[in-house]
C-alpha cells in the first residue's frame, strides 16, 4: 500500500518553501488557472468536476459537481471555503492550509471563474491562527502577482478573497451555521428548507460552500482532467483522500491514499502498527461523530459506501485507533462531552440531551453509576435520535445531537461488558 500524491505532492517536493508563490509557480502552480482562462469556457470546468465524481471532503460526501450545478442565478454570488475543521481526530485541512495555501487559492479562483463569482471567503477556525496567517500571506502574494483583484491576468475576471477567522465553535463547520457566523451572527444552523446555500446562502444570496480539501483538488482535476481523477480510487469514492491517523498508532499523521484499501492495512502501513505491539480494541473510521468499529472489523474497506454499509461513516477521514487497554467508557465520555460543549443550544433534544448523556457517563465513570443508567442512556439517546438507527433519524435541525449518540450506541452494541463492569454491583438499583 502506497500513498498517491496529488494534493500533498507539491509540499513533499519543496518541503521548506512550498507556501511561497514563486516556488508554487515553478512547480507548475497556477497553470490550471491559466489553462481555464485561455479556454474561457466555464461550462467545461463544471463538466470536468462532474466527470471527476469528486464528493465533498468535509464529511457529508455530497457530489461537488452536482452542488455547483445547483447554484442559482444572481448578480451577487459567493464562494465560501469551509476551513472550520474541528471534528475530533481531523487535521488534514490544517496541513493543506499551512503548507500549500496557493493550491487552495488557485482552486478558489478556478471555482469562481466557473460559477461567475466575484467574492470568496475562506473561513478558518479561530484556533488555526498559524494556518490562517499562511493563507493570508499567500492571498497577498496572489494579489501582487495579478492572480486576484480586478482583471485577473489581463482577462475580464475579477475576484476578491477575504480570509475570515472563526472563534471556537465546532458547529460552524455545519454550512448554514458557518454562513450565519460569517454574517456576524451566532453560529446556529439554519432551518431547512431551503436545503441548499446554493439557492439561498450568505446574505441570502446563492452561495457555494466547499471544504478546503475539495477545492484544493480542483487544480489537479483541471490539469489532468476529471476522467483521469475518476480512474483513481473506486466507484463512488474516486480520487485520493487525505486521512488523518491518530490515537495509539506508532506513527500518526496525514496520509493521502486512493480509497478502497482496508483500515487494517492502512493502520499497519502508515501507522506502523500499535504502540507496544498491543491489539486494536476499537477504532473510529471517520471522526468523533462516526460510530466505532471493533478490532475484529479492520478488514472494512476505506470507501464512503463500504463504511456506510457497515454502519458508520467515512465522514471527515479521521481514523482514531484505540488499543486493548483503552477505557472505552472514558473514551465515550470524552466524545459526548465534546458534543455537549459544542451544542449550539437551539434544539431541546440536543441541548438538554447531550448534557444529560455527559452527566450520566460522568456518574458511571466515577464509579457511582446505577444499573438503571443504561436504560436512561438509551432513553435520552432515543429522544435525540429515534430508534438509534444508522444513518440516524433526527429530532434536531442538524446532525450534531445524533453525533453524541454514536459513541453510546457503539458502547452498547459491542462493548456493553465494559460499561457493566463500571457499575457497582453492591448498590441497589436507585429509585
Amino acid at each position: 500500500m502506497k500513498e498517491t500524491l496529488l494534493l500533498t505532492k507539491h509540499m513533499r517536493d519543496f518541503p521548506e518553501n512550498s507556501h511561497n508563490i514563486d516556488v508554487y509557480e515553478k512547480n507548475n502552480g497556477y497553470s490550471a488557472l491559466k489553462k481555464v482562462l485561455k479556454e474561457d469556457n466555464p461550462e467545461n470546468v463544471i463538466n470536468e468536476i462532474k466527470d471527476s465524481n469528486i464528493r465533498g471532503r468535509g464529511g457529508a460526501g455530497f457530489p461537488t459537481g452536482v452542488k455547483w450545478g445547483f447554484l442559482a442565478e444572481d448578480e451577487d454570488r459567493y464562494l465560501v471555503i469551509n476551513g472550520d475543521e474541528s471534528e475530533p481526530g481531523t487535521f488534514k485541512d490544517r496541513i493543506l492550509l499551512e503548507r500549500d495555501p496557493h493550491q487552495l487559492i488557485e482552486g478558489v479562483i478556478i471555482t469562481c471563474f466557473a460559477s461567475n463569482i466575484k467574492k470568496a471567503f475562506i473561513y478558518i477556525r479561530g484556533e488555526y491562527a498559524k494556518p490562517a496567517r499562511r493563507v493570508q500571506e499567500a492571498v497577498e502574494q496572489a494579489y501582487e502577482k495579478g492572480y486576484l483583484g480586478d482583471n485577473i491576468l489581463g482577462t475580464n475576471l475579477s475576484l476578491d478573497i477575504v480570509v475570515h477567522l472563526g472563534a471556537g465553535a465546532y458547529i460552524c463547520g455545519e454550512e448554514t451555521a458557518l454562513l450565519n457566523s460569517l454574517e456576524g451572527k451566532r453560529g446556529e444552523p439554519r432551518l431547512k428548507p431551503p436545503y441548499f446555500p446554493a439557492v439561498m446562502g450568505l446574505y441570502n444570496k446563492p452561495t457555494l460552500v466547499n471544504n478546503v480539501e475539495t477545492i484544493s483538488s480542483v487544480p489537479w482535476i483541471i490539469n489532468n482532467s476529471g476522467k483521469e481523477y475518476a480512474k483513481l480510487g473506486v466507484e463512488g469514492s474516486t480520487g485520493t483522500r487525505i486521512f488523518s491517523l491518530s490515537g495509539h498508532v506508532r506513527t500518526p499523521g496525514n496520509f493521502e491514499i486512493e480509497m478502497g484499501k482496508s483500515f487494517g492495512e492502512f493502520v499497519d502501513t502508515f501507522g506502523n502498527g500499535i504502540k507496544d505491539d498491543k491489539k486494536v480494541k476499537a477504532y473510529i473510521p471517520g471522526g468523533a461523530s462516526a460510530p466505532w468499529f471493533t478490532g475484529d472489523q479492520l478488514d472494512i474497506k476505506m470507501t464512503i459506501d463500504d463504511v456506510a454499509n457497515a454502519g458508520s461513516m467515512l465522514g471527515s477521514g479521521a481514523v482514531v485507533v484505540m488499543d486493548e487497554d483503552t477505557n472505552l467508557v472514558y473514551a465515550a465520555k470524552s466524545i459526548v462531552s465534546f458534543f455537549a460543549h459544542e451544542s449550539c443550544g437551539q434544539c431541546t433534544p440536543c441541548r438538554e440531551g447531550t448534557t444529560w448523556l455527559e452527566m450520566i457517563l460522568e456518574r458511571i465513570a466515577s464509579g457511582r453509576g446505577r444499573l438503571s443508567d443504561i436504560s436512561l442512556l438509551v432513553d435520552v439517546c432515543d429522544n435525540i435520535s429515534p430508534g438509534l438507527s444508522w444513518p440516524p433519524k433526527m429530532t434536531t435541525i442538524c446532525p450534531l445531537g445524533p453525533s453524541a449518540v454514536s459513541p453510546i450506541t457503539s458502547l452498547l452494541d459491542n462493548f456493553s461488558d465494559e460499561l457493566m463492569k463500571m457499575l457497582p454491583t453492591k448498590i441497589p438499583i436507585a429509585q
Partner: protein
Amino acid sequence: MSWDNELLERAHKIIELYPQKRSALGPLLYLAQEKDGFISDDSIVEISNLVDITEVQVKSVSSFYSMYKEEQTGTYLLSVCKSISCEINDSRSVINSVKEFTGLENYETDQDKLFTFEEVECIGACGGAPAVQVNYETVEGLTPEKTIEMCEWLKNDKPEIIVADQLQNKFGGTKSFDWAIEDNTGSAYTVPGFQNIGTAKEKDN
C-alpha cells in the same frame, strides 16, 4: 474606556473587507479582547455603534463563541486539549501538571494576571496528542514534565510574542505532521495572531 483612534482605524479597515458591516463583528470582538483581555461592556457599546446593531445583539454573539472571553484573561492563555485523541494519549496528566503549576482550576486566572487555564475541545492537533495552545499557538506531543518546563519558561522569561514553532522546538514532541516551513510569527495577546485583525507579530531573532 472607549476605543482610541488607532483601534478605530483598524476597526474601519476590517469593516471595509465585508459586503455588510455586521460580518466584521467577529474580528472586531477580537480587537476588543486584545485591548482589555476580555470583551468589556464599553467595547460592546463601541462595536454596536460601529456595525449598527444593538448592544444585546453584540453580547448575544460574543457569549456564543468560546474564544471571546467574558472575564479578564492573563498574559498567557493555556488551552489544554481534552478531546478524544488527546484523552486517550493521557491529556489528563498534562492538565494536572498545568493545574499543579498554576494552582488554577478550569477557566480560572491567577491574581497576577499571568496565566489563564482552560480545558478545551479539539484543536486539530490529534496526531501530536496531547497538545496545548498558548495564546492560540499550538505545541504538540507534550509530556507532563515538558508542560511544567514550558510554564516555568513563560513565567520567568515572559516572552512578549508567542510563536508556535519556538514552543514546539523547546518543549514539543511528536507532531501531527512535519511542519517543515520555518516560522517566526505569532501572537502577543490572548487573541489569535492574524494579519487581518492586526494581531500577527513577528519575533526578532
